């Protein structure tokens, strides 16, 4: 019975908290720019507003345009159910494998890019092209950084990785650190964050993710915004519960669970802080500088693998 409650919390926690995460990042960025900035719950209001507005769909759009938001949000829901958030004792060897979550996320990217192409606007086209370029190069770094963890802990199942990493000896710390650097670069690329893409602008030169969803409105836009927010939180959870699993609940006891959730929230906050600092600190890289950065993350992870075995 307790197991089921834990599972319900596990499934609901990410979608629920993800807009908050985006709100916090925007708040911190505003503070950096010496302005008050909207409240951290503003994204919830935006979603609520969008869900209740009418929708305008282009004449050229096909069923792909209508179906894509559900596929994208569904993908993020599926992934958020199969990654360790606060409890590592839950064993999910159905979908909890590194490759499975990477490829399920790829479904989301696939439909997002198609939706961008569907309406035949100029923006959607080059948005999808840039998105596919960045995501195809980022997948390598992402998989190899997670692979380092699985070689260190001897299994690719995420829940058991988070279980074994904290009992790690210091000797094998260097590969995990290198892998985390590679992972963090891949995180920024996959969630369209700063050095790769500017989330808050509609300037043709710089936007990748925004360009694809430019034609959306109403409840479909809400779904997509929500999906990209929860994708950000998914990567933050992966980063925190796999690379820094200390404090994750090992057993079913109530105190361990509550403590696990609190630790998770703290770690998520630190990640948001880090992302916001980067967004305010550095400028967006030119599109043809991105492959070098992604290659760097790929090389980092390969060195890390070299060190583990």
């Amino acid at each position: 019975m307790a197991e089921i409650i834990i599972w319900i919390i596990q499934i609901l926690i990410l979608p629920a908290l993800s807009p908050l995460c985006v709100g916090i990042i925007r708040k911190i960025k505003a503070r950096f720019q010496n302005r008050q900035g909207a409240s951290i719950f503003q994204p919830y209001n935006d979603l609520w507003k969008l869900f209740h507005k009418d929708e305008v769909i282009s004449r050229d759009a096909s069923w792909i345009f209508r179906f894509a938001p559900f596929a994208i949000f569904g993908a993020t829901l599926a992934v958020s159910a199969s990654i360790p958030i606060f409890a590592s004792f839950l064993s999910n060897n159905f979908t909890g494998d590194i490759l499975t979550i990477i490829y399920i996320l790829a479904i989301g990217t696939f439909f997002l890019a198609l939706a961008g192409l569907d309406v035949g606007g100029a923006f959607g086209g080059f948005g999808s092209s840039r998105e596919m370029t960045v995501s195809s190069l980022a997948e390598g770094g992402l998989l190899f950084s997670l692979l380092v963890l699985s070689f260190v802990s001897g299994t690719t199942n995420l829940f058991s990785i988070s279980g074994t990493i904290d009992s790690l000896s210091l000797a094998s710390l260097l590969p995990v650190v290198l892998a985390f650097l590679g992972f963090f670069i891949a995180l920024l690329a996959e969630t369209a964050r700063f050095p790769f893409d500017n989330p808050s602008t509609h300037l043709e030169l710089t936007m990748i993710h925004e360009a694809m969803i430019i034609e959306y409105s109403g409840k479909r836009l809400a779904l997509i915004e929500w999906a990209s927010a929860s994708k950000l939180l998914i990567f933050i959870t992966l980063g925190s519960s796999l690379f820094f699993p200390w404090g994750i609940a090992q057993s079913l006891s109530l105190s361990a669970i509550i403590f696990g959730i609190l630790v998770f929230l703290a770690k998520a906050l630190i990640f948001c802080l880090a992302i916001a600092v980067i967004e305010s600190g550095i400028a967006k890289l030119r599109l043809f500088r991105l492959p070098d950065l992604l290659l760097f993350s790929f090389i980092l992870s390969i060195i890390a693998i070299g060190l583990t075995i």
Partner: protein
Amino acid sequence: MFETMLSQSTFFAIMALFVLGAITALFFRKDDKLANLASSFFAILGSLLGIAYSIAAINSDAAIFYEIKSSFPLLSFNFNIDHLAAFFIFIISLISLFCSIYGIGYIKHYYGKYSIGGLGFFYNLFILGMLCVVTASNILFFLMVWEIMSLASYFLVIYERDKQENVKAGFLYFVMTHIGTAFIILALLLMYKFTGSFDFFAIKESAGSIPPLVKDIIFILALIGFGTKAGVIPFHIWLPSAHPAAPSHVSALMSGVMIKTGIYMMIRIFFDIFTDIPIWWGGVVLIIGAVSALLGVLYALTEHDLKKLLAYHSIENIGIILFGIGSALSFSSMGMNSFAILGLVAALFHTLNHATFKSLLFLSAGSVISKTHTGNIEEYGGLIKYMPQTAFFFLVGSMAISALPPFNGFFSEWLTFQALFEGIRSMGAAYRWIFIFSAGSLILTSGLALACFVKAFGITFLARPRSEHAKQAKESLFSLKFGMAALSAVCLLLGLFSGFLSGIFNNIVRGIRLFNGYEPAFSVSQSHIININSGFSSLSAPAIFVVLSLAGIAALAITRLLAKDQKVKIGATWDCGTDLGPRMEITATGFSRTIIMIFKGILKPSKQAEIEYRDANMRYFPKSRTLVLEISDVYRKYFYKPLYNFVLKISGQVKKIQSGNVNAYVLYIFTALILLLFFAV
């Protein structure tokens, strides 16, 4: 039930059906409609019987061996159907079943233009050739059916012979296959020389007597010979021009099944006939696999002809299959046969998957091309509104080939990844880096494949039509749609039952001599969980399907809950004020330009820009601006052209012998006589 199915008469009944199909097609060649129906009817019957026979053969452990003596020495038509051969019969029959159904409707647009009887004849001969290739167990008989298969497919490639590039493609195809066969003849004859027999069984028994150096030579020759047929990178130049030239249901068969006969023979020779395998074999196959996969997908990205793009993807998927085979070779050379079984199961599973989704893609491409009369995707656009079913089937095919979960592509790539990960963990120092390089190339390839199929599907089916042809496109006939629908269902089913299938592949691979008696490195539980290396990683196909559909339904429920009574208005796409013409959409060139510029070191793109001004001397107002982007064909420029010119130069010299002067001719005889008297005596 299986024993009755496995009798010799059923096997020869399959052969007889295809022969009948060929003859009746020729017999009715005067009346197109009848010829088409006759040949497709017998082809469908033959493939149905083939599927039944192969399933029975896979499930029974009886060693099936038929022998027919022939009047020529050393040649006897003997067939050996073990589990591996039965599996390949299954692939051939399955795909030819759907292609023949598809063909009934598709051939209609050839009526009156080309000889339908000829098409039916060579189509049935081609399938018969493939069936014999995977079951022949006498060297001479094997080489005979191997060349008959290439001959039949040559005539199918030059079927539309009024187009000059088809004839050129056919010529290049036949020459490359023949050169490949020359290597195969050399390899098989070397085997005959050291084992003294023409029969694969006897060769298997006395394989030990082949000295190691000769074994390496045979390996290299077989790799080149069968690699040419499989379309491995340095020998692939015929594939992107030959497959698109054939009628679509034939190029589906060629791309889906024919290139697998090369893979079949590689497995037969490397694992079934040779016993102790040196360590470097696996490394070579892995490197070739990595190069083929990566370059295959990069060339696909540069391609704008739909069928050429799919042909390049066949090269990429052959690379992925070679990952499986290469890892199996490395593991078995280190004695870790349980991991080798995992590698080989991954390779066989991907062979089956690639056969299904590649033929699905070619069939849907064929239905698009038959309606728009052009292969260039730049002239398509918006076809999803005119051909909704074909678009859906193409979408299913693209998702399967880019290994997106619910479909079968993902599970075989997952198994290949597991084999490579095991390699990284357990191999020796140098080979570990080859495995890492292969894993890197595989993940990069699957990412680029995803980008390429977004381009292929998006530019072809979405947005607005960019040419008159695209506007008049209509949905194709029922038999075409049925063929494609069946294949998409098969893609999904193979994905769902991948757990059950890996169990079957397991006992197929354990039928091979090198592996019988070994436990595989993976186990399949009742609830379809594939568990690698006792817990290293696990996965359950039905669970993923259930989770994904539940997530989708949940998303729908949330929107239904929160957005109850909003209206949906149909408006115009945002067009910054000017009316949005079809030229405003992104084109295939534009889409893949960024990736090509990133990989320009490998692809060496060249750019030509011409500007035509309204007024020649006042160069301010350009009338038209054309941009030509080309990718240089590295292989022809640096390997095949120089080789051909070198041979031409020699023949230029040799030609001078026939100088026309009688005295010189007599001098040749005189010198021959004197030299012989000096040296031979």
